C-alpha cells in the first residue's frame, strides 16, 4: 500500500525540511495519522520506507510519544488536563463531566468512534485552568457544565472541523492571556493542525 500522489509529495517536502530523512519521522507519523485516522501498521511501514528507519524503529518512536495513537480513535479526541494547576481549579470535575456526557471513560473510545476521552498532563494553559482540548485545539477555563455543552455540541452538530477560537468563544471561560485575534484555520482530526504537515484546513480553495 502506498500513499496517494499528493500525500507522497507532502512526504517529500517534509523530508526536505531536514538534513537527514530520519528526522522527518514525527511529521510523517502525523501525516500517516491524517491518512488513516490513527497509526496503523501499514502507516508506520510507509513512514519507515520514507525515512530510512526500520519499521521497528518507527514503532519505537511512535509508542514513545503520547500524541501518536496506535489504536483507532474517535472523530473527536477530548483531552482534559488534570495536572496540578488544573486539578486545583476543578480539572477532575471537568474530566468527570466529559466522561459522563460522552459515556466514554478516560483512555477509551466509544463503539461509534465518535469520541475518545483522555486525561492529559499539563497543556500549558495553567492561567486559564482548567484546560480542555478537542483534537488539540484548546479551550481554556470551561466549567463542568460548559464542558458538557461542548460534548453535546460535538455530538449534535458533528462539526467537520474544530477551531480553538470558535470553541473558546462558545464554551470557554478565563484565558491564560488575551488571545487578541481569532484565526479561522481548523483541525481536521485527532492530530495537531499545522500547515506544513497537511493537517490543517486552509479554507475553500
Amino acid at each position, binding site marked *: 500500500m502506498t500513499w496517494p500522489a499528493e500525500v507522497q509529495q507532502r512526504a517529500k517536502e517534509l523530508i526536505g*525540511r*531536514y*538534513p*537527514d530523512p*530520519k*528526522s*522527518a*519521522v*514525527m*511529521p510523517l507519523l*502525523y501525516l500517516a495519522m491524517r491518512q488513516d485516522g490513527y497509526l496503523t501498521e501499514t502507516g508506520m511501514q510507509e513512514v519507515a520506507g520514507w*525515512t530510512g*528507519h526500520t519499521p521497528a524503529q518507527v514503532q*519505537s*518512536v511512535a509508542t*514513545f*510519544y*503520547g*500524541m*501518536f495513537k496506535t489504536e483507532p480513535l474517535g472523530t473527536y479526541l477530548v*483531552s482534559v488536563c*488534570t*495536572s*496540578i*494547576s488544573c*486539578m*486545583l*481549579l476543578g480539572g477532575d470535575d471537568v474530566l468527570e463531566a466529559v466522561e459522563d456526557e460522552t459515556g466514554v471513560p478516560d483512555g477509551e473510545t466509544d463503539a461509534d468512534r465518535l469520541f475518545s476521552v483522555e486525561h*492529559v*498532563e*499539563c*497543556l*500549558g*494553559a*495553567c*492561567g*486559564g*485552568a482548567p484546560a480542555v*482540548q478537542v483534537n*488539540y*485545539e*484548546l479551550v481554556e477555563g470551561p466549567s463542568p457544565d460548559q464542558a458538557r455543552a461542548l460534548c453535546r455540541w460535538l455530538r449534535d452538530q458533528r462539526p467537520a472541523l474544530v477551531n*480553538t477560537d470558535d470553541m473558546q468563544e462558545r464554551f470557554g471561560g*478565563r484565558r*491564560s*492571556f*488575551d*488571545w*487578541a*485575534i481569532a*484565526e479561522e*484555520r481548523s*483541525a481536521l482530526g485527532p492530530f*495537531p*493542525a*499545522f*500547515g*506544513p*504537515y497537511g493537517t*490543517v484546513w486552509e479554507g475553500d480553495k
Partner: protein
Amino acid sequence: MSHPQVLTARMTEHPTDSHTLERYETTGGYRHARRAIDMTRDEIVDLVKASGLLGRGGAAFSAGLKWSFLAPSRPSYLVVNGDESEPGTFKDRQLLERDPHQMIEGIIITSVANEVHEAFVYIRGEYPKPARRVQQAIDEAYAAGYLGQGIFGRDYDLDVTVHLGGGAYICGEETALINSLEGKRGEPRLKPPYFPAAKGLYMMPTIVNNVETVSNLPHILEMGTDDYRALGHADDSGTFLFSVSGHVKEPGNYELPHGITWRELIFDIAGGIRDDRALKAWIPGGASAPWFVPEHHLDLEITKDATGNAGSMLGSGAVVVMDETTCAVKAAERIVRFFSHESCGQCTPCREGTTWLEMILRRIEDGSGRRIDAELLLDVSDNISPGLTWPPKQTTICPLGPSAVSPITSVSRYFKDELLQHIEQAGCPLG
C-alpha cells in the same frame, strides 16, 4: 503596573496585530538582526555575556557562556526550545503566539553569533496554534528576505524550520530534544560526552536556547548591556516572565524585574487569594521546584540566589499558588504522577521510583496508607536523589527523577502532620 515591559510591550500596546511583520517593523523590529550581520561572532557573544542574560528554560545558565562553548567544527545548529511542558508554565506559549517575529529576530542574532545556517524551532505538539502563528511569521520573514538565502541582501543564508513535538515533557531536556529532532525516542543523552555545544544535533555543535531567552536578544542589542542589566536586580539582569496560576484572583503571565517579594507577586500583582482565603503554600518555579510557605518565604526577595539559598529555584518562572483548602498530599500526588508519566524509562531509579512514589501517595490520599509510608516515601526519594539535598544530587541521566522528589520533601518538611493524619484517619482530613 509600573514595572517596565520589554518582551510583552508590543503585544500589550498593539494587541490585535503584534504578531504581524508589518507591526513588528513599524515598532522597530529587525533593525538589530540587520546590525548583527555586520558584527563578529566574538562581539555578539561578549555582548550577551556582559548582558548577564540567563537561560529562561529553567536552568538559568549564562546564555553568552553557553554560546562561547560552541565547538569549532561545522555545520553548527540552533534549536529553539519551545517544548514548554513544565506544569504551571505558559509564558512561551504567549511569546510564540503573540510576538513570533521577536523570537525570529532573536534566532537571526543567535545564528550569526554561532555561525548557524540552519535553525529549528521545536514546539510542543499540543501547541498547534502557536506553531501556526510562528510558521506564518517565518513565511513572512522569508518573503521579506529576512530568512532564506542571502538574508537582508547580505552574504548569509539562514533557514528556520518548525518541528512539532509528540507530547513528551522530557523533550524539553536539551539532549532528549536533540534525539527527538533526529527522529529517535526522546531519551536524554549522557553529559559528558554529549554536551550539545560539542556533540549535539547530528553530533555537530548545537546551541539549544529557550524561546524567552532568544526573544530577549533584540532588546539586548537595542538597549546595550548597561540598560538591559538595569532592568533587573543585582545579578539577575533583564526582566523575567512569571506564569502565575492556581488559587489567585488574577492568574496570568507577568513580566517583572527580579527583586520584588513573593508577597508583592501573589497579593498585589496576582490579586491575592480567591475568596480571600488563607495562603497555604506555593511552588516558586514550576512543578520541579520545592514549595514555599507563607510562614518562612513571603517576604523573601525573588532573586535566583535568594530562592536557591532558601532551598528552591525560580526555574521556568511558574508560580503555582495553593490556598488553605488544598490537600498537600493530593497536590504532591498530582505532581509526582506527572513525573511518573513523563519518565522516559531509561534510568531505573526514576522509572521505578516515580512509579512507587505515585502509588504510595495515592494510597495515602485514598485512606489506605500504612504507618511506614511517610518513611518509605523519603527512602524511595533518597534512591533517586541521594541525601535529599538542594540542589539535588541525582542517580539518573537527567534531572527528571529528582524533580519528583521536590513535592515529597516539601510535604515532609511543612505538612508532615497532615500526611500522618491521612494515615491515622484512613483518609483525607480535608474531605
